[in-house]
């Protein structure tokens, strides 16, 4: 006879589920509203989505219960909180991009917004758990929603991108389950803190098993984080999806991936097994360098940004390799600052999206498109220039402070060689961001028609651009308060 299980409702700690519950409820209600009332405008759904996101954000900020809930399945610790905040704020900003000047099919459909909220819920689950199965469910929920949203763009390229992302993602999911299975076989648990306990007690033996699990996990998370050599989907998927969604993909899925990587790899790096650290070291350096080198030769701005986001991901993964509190705080700081610059850059691409491919048979945003923009549309050119300088890590714009902090974390923990490699990579990255600036500021315009740069522009987009450029420019005063908040959360969760 099985023992009857008595569940204490307090022990479940239900409030920890509130943020995800709000987003899921929001998704469901959007479907219901769409059933009840037809012909609702995209602005209605967009704003409703933003409202649900804000509610969820409020629930995250207001949460002050126990860390663990639902028999340790949910773990709402500091990094879960901070990453949820980043996810929610970024989502709120990016979903507003649906309110561009032109009509796109996907934004007219209520399902898009429902999927969007489901995806957010998936990411929220993914970051607030250290249970490998829960993480997997969150990951797959989010990914499946994302594949569909890419395909809803309904261009041949978009379908290609969705299928490519889906197949690659399926392989990654396979890797993930493989790794989780090995960890379970080794330790008899799927919870990271339990795995850590057992492995530590046993001195990380058998090493072959741990290494195999690590490599599979690196493959799985490597897909999500677009780490070299698992990055091949990134440029094609970014190219195929709309600029708004591509920008979103360069930030949110990755921060979720970073959190999982942080939970798992820091435990492994602390083990003192040199091999585990070396594997990550090689992956980090390859990702940064390769991303930067390939970005040098791109002809399309979106593809360039795709490769550059690979390089940025590598740069940030270095924080996980370093593993100090300072580095982990640096990771979040970097990503927040990067988010604003990237939001701006992709919004600008989105706003300049033209009905036809006027400049190139294949690419939407070739470099030529922007030549002489300073003469045709000076304000936009200056704003885009600021985003490029920010992404390149030029002081005093946003990403510079993230770079500074991460490199300082590397130096402070004795990783001087890593800091030098990071510095050299920043120098390399300048070249391709400069390339766009050279086109915009130094070349002669192709046509004098200002409208080619504002075909999808709208007031909302202008506000977002203004907001992004404002934050990017004044980030010097934001670093201090942000760091305080982040360090507080990161220290609370013991990283």
């Amino acid at each position, binding site marked *: 006879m099985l023992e009857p299980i008595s569940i204490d409702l307090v022990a479940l700690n239900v409030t920890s589920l509130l943020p995800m519950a709000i987003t899921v409820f929001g998704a469901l209600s959007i479907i219901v509203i769409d059933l009840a009332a037809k012909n609702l405008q995209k602005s209605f759904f967009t704003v409703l989505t933003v409202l649900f996101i804000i509610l969820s954000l409020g629930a995250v900020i207001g949460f002050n219960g126990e860390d663990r809930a639902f028999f340790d399945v949910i773990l709402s610790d500091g990094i879960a909180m901070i990453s949820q905040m980043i996810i929610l704020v970024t989502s709120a900003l990016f979903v507003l991009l649906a309110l561009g000047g032109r009509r796109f099919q996907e934004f007219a459909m209520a399902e898009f917004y429902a999927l969007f909220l489901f995806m957010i819920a998936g990411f929220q689950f993914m970051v607030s758990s250290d249970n490998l199965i829960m993480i997997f469910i969150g990951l797959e929920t989010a990914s499946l929603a994302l594949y569909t949203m890419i395909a809803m763009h309904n261009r041949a390229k978009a379908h290609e991108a969705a299928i490519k992302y889906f197949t690659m993602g399926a392989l990654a999911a396979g890797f993930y389950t493989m790794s989780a299975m090995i960890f379970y076989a080794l330790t008899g648990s799927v919870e990271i803190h339990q795995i850590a306990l057992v492995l530590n007690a046993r001195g990380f033996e058998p090493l072959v098993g741990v290494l195999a699990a690590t490599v599979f996990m690196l493959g799985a998370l490597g897909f999500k984080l677009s780490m070299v050599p698992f990055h091949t989907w990134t440029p094609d998927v970014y190219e195929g999806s709309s600029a708004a969604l591509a920008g979103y993909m360069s930030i949110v899925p990755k921060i979720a991936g970073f959190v999982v990587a942080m939970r798992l790899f820091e435990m492994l790096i602390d083990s003192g097994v040199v091999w585990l650290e070396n594997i990550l070291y090689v992956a980090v350096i390859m990702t940064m360098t390769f991303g930067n080198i390939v970005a040098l030769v791109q002809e399309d701005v979106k593809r360039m940004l795709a490769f550059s986001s690979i390089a940025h991901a590598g740069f940030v993964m270095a924080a996980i390799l370093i593993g100090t509190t300072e580095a982990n705080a640096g990771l979040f700081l970097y990503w927040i600052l990067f988010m604003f610059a990237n939001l701006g850059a992709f919004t600008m691409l989105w706003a300049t999206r033209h009905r036809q491919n006027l400049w190139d048979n294949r690419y939407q945003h070739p470099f030529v498109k922007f030549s002489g923009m*300073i*003469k045709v549309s000076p304000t936009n050119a200056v704003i885009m220039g600021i985003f490029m*300088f920010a992404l390149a890590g*030029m*002081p*005093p714009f946003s990403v510079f402070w993230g770079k*500074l*902090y991460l*490199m*300082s974390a590397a*130096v*402070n923990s004795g990783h*001087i060689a890593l*800091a*030098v490699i990071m*510095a*050299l990579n*920043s*120098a390399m990255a*300048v*070249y391709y961001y*400069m390339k766009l*600036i*050279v086109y915009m*500021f*130094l*070349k002669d315009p192709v046509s004098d028609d200002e409208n080619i740069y504002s075909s999808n522009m709208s007031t909302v987009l202008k506000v977002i651009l203004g907001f992004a450029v404002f934050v990017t420019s004044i980030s*010097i*005063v934001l*670093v*201090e308060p942000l*760091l*305080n908040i982040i*360090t507080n959360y990161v220290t609370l969760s013991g990283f």
Partner: protein
Amino acid sequence: MDHILSLIIFFPLIAGIFGFLVNKESIRAYGITVAFIEFTITIALWIAFDGNEAGFQFVEHATLISSFGVSYHVGVDGISLFLVILSTFMTMVALIGLNIEKDAKNLIISILYLEMTMVGVFLSLDVILFYLFWEFSLVPMLYIIGAWGSDRRIYAAIKFFLYTFAGSVLMLVGILYMGYIYHATTGVWSFSIPDWELLILPISTQFWLFGAFFLAFAIKVPMFPFHTWLPYAHGQAPTVGSVILAAVLLKMGTYGMVRFLLPLFPDATIYFLIPIAIVAIVMVIYTAMVAYAQKDMKQVIAYSSISHMGIIILGIFAINAEGITGSIFLMISHGIVSGGLFMLVGMIYDRRHTKLMSEFGGLAISMPTFATIYGIMLMASVGLPLTVGFVGEFLSLMGFYKVNWIMTLFAGTGIILGAVYMLTLYKRSFFGEITNDKNRGLKDINGRELAAMIPLVALVVILGIYPKPILDPIDTSVKKMIVLMQKKSVLPENKEFIIKVNSIRGGE
């Protein structure tokens, strides 16, 4: 006068932002007015400056990122004072001489931003702030060269940008490491130069940090063999770009050497003294020879700039009061002279649309006033006594004489070579009969150009005869720095070396 330094740094920025509102037709007048006001403020700073006080004055401090020790910390001492005045002065003169009509608004606003970064570099006492201005100075210059230059301007602009950027990222690692050491030693985060100067570092650490900082400065100066970007940038840049580049931007590198390398890493400085001096001498002689071989007038002056920068470096690494004071004076005089020469070349280019010396000849007949001013500037560049160029070169070489007289002798040949290529340039372009008909009847220097050149010529003569008001405050601050170096050096033989090169009898 409490916030005069912030005013000096941010006035051009604010004026630049408001410049967007000014009408296209009146933007030139606006630019000149702003530059003049800025120059007046720096003169006020000079008047209020206490020449007997060696430390930093008018210091302002506000914390930006307290948990990381980054702060807004500015101050001025004898070393930086005149470089700031030079920056505002040359910006003003360059704007007066400016005659580009195309997109003049963007150009003038860029120049104002550039002015902000230049004074920012010289006034920053926080290293992160310094790095901020240092890097940001590349952006307006990139735009100026790339948008208003000649045919291969984009290549030149990118080369300029990438060279200097790549050099300075390693400096950033050095800065962070230095901050880390400061934190490890004292338990507080600080990036302020006065704080760092108190830190005594072990020799091996000094070597690495010296290397990281030196590379950035060497590329900026530019030192042989990193000099290849400069002739290109000069060749393609518009006149105003060349003037500011030669007059001020290059000085950032040598200023960095004085401000960072010497007081922070005294032992490494002495250890690397002879190799650096050898490179500097090679640079002086080699680029002088290259200058002689040029056909293009502007390239001659570009290479002569590099050659003179070699003498400045030599003076700095003499590590005695004469050498360093002389080299700082030479930075200022070279700023005035090379800026003036580039403006003069720009004027002749406006008339003839060529810079090739073979196209000229007999210009003295058609443009006598122009030829006279050119002659005065040229003599100052060669280092004729009683011109501004002489004082700095003499002091720098005299300083290094105490370190090693044979090497000084070699460096001295650079001056002779300088006379050779400069006088050849003058002979080929200005003397003789007019052989090319296009040179006949060229308009002599006009009122606007005269307004830009007269202050330069006046300074060349006045400071050449009576350099004391500038030399004294520099000397006070330099002496304090040398005492600091002597105290800080770890090895006893280095302490002795500093005393030896600063005593009257000198090296041998």
